């Protein structure tokens, strides 16, 4: 039970990867990439958690209070915003690919066309 958050993180990563390989649609593929990324967020935050720790914001709690790790939270919060921008780039690629070739199926977008 004490390794459950790590297991959920690995589960999300593997599910996302499986979705990328078996997806029939480029938009669904971009969503699976995002799911795989969120597995890493859960992993980072699970590493930084301390038992009976509070959020690392000391405006209302005394400074001697035990708090969770702030560094992994800093990494994760910038990562979330940047991750969604990269997923938006993937969706723009999907829209352009559909405009050129008329299909969104990754299995049919195989040849390079001039």
């Amino acid at each position, binding site marked *: 039970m004490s*390794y*459950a958050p790590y297991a959920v993180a690995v589960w999300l990563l593997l599910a996302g990867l499986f979705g990328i390989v078996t997806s029939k649609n480029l938009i669904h593929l971009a969503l699976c990439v995002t799911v795989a990324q969120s597995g890493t967020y859960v992993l980072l935050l699970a590493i930084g958690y301390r038992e009976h720790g509070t959020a690392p914001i000391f405006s209302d709690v005394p400074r001697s209070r035990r708090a969770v790790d702030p560094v992994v*939270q800093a990494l994760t*919060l910038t990562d979330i915003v940047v991750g969604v921008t990269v997923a938006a780039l993937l969706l723009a690629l999907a829209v352009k690919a559909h405009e050129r070739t008329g299909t969104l199926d990754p299995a049919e977008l195989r040849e390079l066309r001039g």
Partner: protein
Amino acid sequence: MTRQSRVGLCAVGLAGLAALLAWGIAGLEPFGHYPGPYGTILNAVEPQERHAANVVAAVVFDYRGVDTLGEELILFCAVMGLAFLLRENREENTRSVRDRASSDAVRAVGIVAVPVVVLLALDLIAHGYITPGGGFQGGVAASAGLLLVYLAGDWRAMRRAGPLRLVDVAEAGGAAGFVVVGFATLIAGGAFLENLLPLGTFGKLTSGGTIPVANWCVGLEVSAAFVLIFLEFLEEIMAERARDR
């Protein structure tokens, strides 16, 4: 390679990856027993050193400022790539497309909601280093406020509220502002992105040194980036509607 064989190969690969990851996480500390000294030291030391109540914001904008600079540049490049992709071959002029919210109730709620959301977002950015919040969160919320102009109102109103040239300049200005802060501290005699401004009182808005400056630069950049993303995608659908008429 057929689809079945591809899925089978993927299953074998994922099983191997799962075994490797299981062996890896078996070597981690159990959940809740955080071992490392870095987080503990930062929590103990940061209120004296930087006078910012939100330790996470201090880590993002000061202690690991170079990481945030890198992330900001990733965001900038991704939005640039998106703009290149979607602006090519766009010959339709979407200024004549009419797309109004048809219900009066929706428009009335929009008139009240847009300034409230934008003000809340600016408050989120401004108090980012005292309470939970910051440039990233408030920036996305501000862009959502501008999106509300289209959703509860009119496409032409949104184009006028956020002209594309101005949004481009704002985004580049935000990204450049962060780099300028770093170079300014370099010129003033410290290291790149070192905190050299006066630190102020703990828990007030005038605390943190260079953290508020970096915070606002990031807030400007993220909000302009997301407004740009929304505008580009909406222009695509409006161009399709213009082509239909």
